[in-house]
């Protein structure tokens, strides 16, 4: 009898606990939305009444108009696609190459330390400064932006991968050795899987770096892309289009971060903090 009462009563407190949490979230989100809308309204009113210089600051309705125009002419979608393509291609190229180099160093421990030093120096080079060089080498098309994005992400991935090898539990390595595992098996069954969380955290950081690489590449020399659009609009004092570009770039970064997180959740189901 008492057992029946217990089981029947058990789910209730949980349900009661969940609802205040959800309500609190809803209130918080609503508050953020209200603040943002109020800010936009103030901005629009200030621009309409010439309290601020609309030429220098743009306005929310102006941005909307700019978006509408971009969508009807198709340039907004095309430019977004170009930048997204350059970013993703560069991100994958740089991250895969960096991770490969970092993990590959495990096979050659003698050069691992100096190579790690080189990767740290590489990371401190302002990659954007290489922009003009890359454009001269690879032209003003998409490939120079892909290279710039790849160079911007390579070192981060390499540092993360070498760190994952360095942080590996020596006892685990000893266990594999004592069990007679070949170097290939140690790599496939220990080094690689234990690097996965490091690879993903580098990938998340690299989204921003790849985007900077692609956009700055477009600033330097390009025929298309959001960076190109923003640069041209900026030089024409079309601040609404500049804002539009920034908003789309932010959305793009958020979207890529979300995709990486979903892939990570799919692959790394074993982490204790999930």
């Amino acid at each position, binding site marked *: 009898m008492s057992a029946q009462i217990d089981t029947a009563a058990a789910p209730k407190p949980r349900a009661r606990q969940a609802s205040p949490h959800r309500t609190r979230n809803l209130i918080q989100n609503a508050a953020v939305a209200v603040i943002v809308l109020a800010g936009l309204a103030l901005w629009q009113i200030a621009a309409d009444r010439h309290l601020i210089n609309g030429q220098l600051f743009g306005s929310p309705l102006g941005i909307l108009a700019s978006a509408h125009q971009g969508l009807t002419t198709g340039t907004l979608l095309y430019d977004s696609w170009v930048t997204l393509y350059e970013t993703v291609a560069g991100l994958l190229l740089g991250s895969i190459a960096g991770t490969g180099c970092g993990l590959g160093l495990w096979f050659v421990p003698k050069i691992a330390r100096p190579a790690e030093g080189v990767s740290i120096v590489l990371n401190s080079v302002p990659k954007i400064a290489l922009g003009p060089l890359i454009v001269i080498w690879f032209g003003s098309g998409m490939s120079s932006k892909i290279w710039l994005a790849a160079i911007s992400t390579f070192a981060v991935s390499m540092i993360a991968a070498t760190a994952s090898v360095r942080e590996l539990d020596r006892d*685990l390595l000893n*266990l594999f050795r*004592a069990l007679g595992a070949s170097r290939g098996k140690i790599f496939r069954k220990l080094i690689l899987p234990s690097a996965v969380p490091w690879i993903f955290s580098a990938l998340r950081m690299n989204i921003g770096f790849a985007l900077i690489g692609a956009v700055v590449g477009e600033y330097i020399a390009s025929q298309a892309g959001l960076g190109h659009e923003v640069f041209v609009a900026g030089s024409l004092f079309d601040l609404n289009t500049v804002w539009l570009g920034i908003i789309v770039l932010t959305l793009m970064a958020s979207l890529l971060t979300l995709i990486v997180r979903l892939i990570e959740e799919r692959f790394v189901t*074993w982490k204790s903090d999930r």
Partner: protein
Amino acid sequence: MTPALAIRSLSHDFIAADGGATPVLDRLDIAVAPGEILAIVGRSGAGKSTLFNIISGLLSPRSGRIEIAGVPAGTGNSRIAYMLQKDLLLPWRSVLDNALLGIELRGKVGAVDREDAIAMLERYGLAAQINAYPHEISGGQRQRVALTRTLLLRPTVLLLDEPFSALDYETRLMLEDDVMSLRDERGMSVVLVTHDIEEAIAMSDRVVVLAGRPARVSQDISIGLTTAGRRDAISAREAPEFRAYHARIWGALKSTAIAA
């Protein structure tokens, strides 16, 4: 009778970064009979782990040798398997896949291996956790998975380095029992490296005390306990001789502390 494991005049040095050598182990001679449980006790820094690493083949000694069933370690068919305080389970593998790791690294995992692993995990009360990840089970359960991984290799010599010291007392007694009954069933030899005198006396047939710097065998004590019924982790601790052994080993460890 040929010992299951023999440590023959084994000496080893620590080589410092500046090239200077500090002797750690000095001409150790220890033999473990088939089916015997031997405990090696010593203070921390006595060279227990170094000895453990040499026996398990992770370190090459400066001089001396390790023989398994009469032949140099690593050459015969006999197998040494070891287990540490850390369970060393791979977080991305399920309980079953962790248990099968040793077999997988040595060759191919067959259907029979899989069945064996499942049967052994079930025996250790892990039937419901076979597909769980290590972070989803308790410390004692994790250590049992590690024990399963070790035992599936069918070792002739089982090396244990403080394997249960991180566990709560109850779980620890249960695992001590597991090891003792496994020895009874399979007749494998067990070498237990520990600083826990009680665990050493409760589990083993013999206790070797390592002392001095470099470490030598200072005492070699056969343990005979009078237990009511079968000897297990509890009954061994309740044996009338237990305290006397404890005092003797504690005395041996303490005197080395003063000497050092």
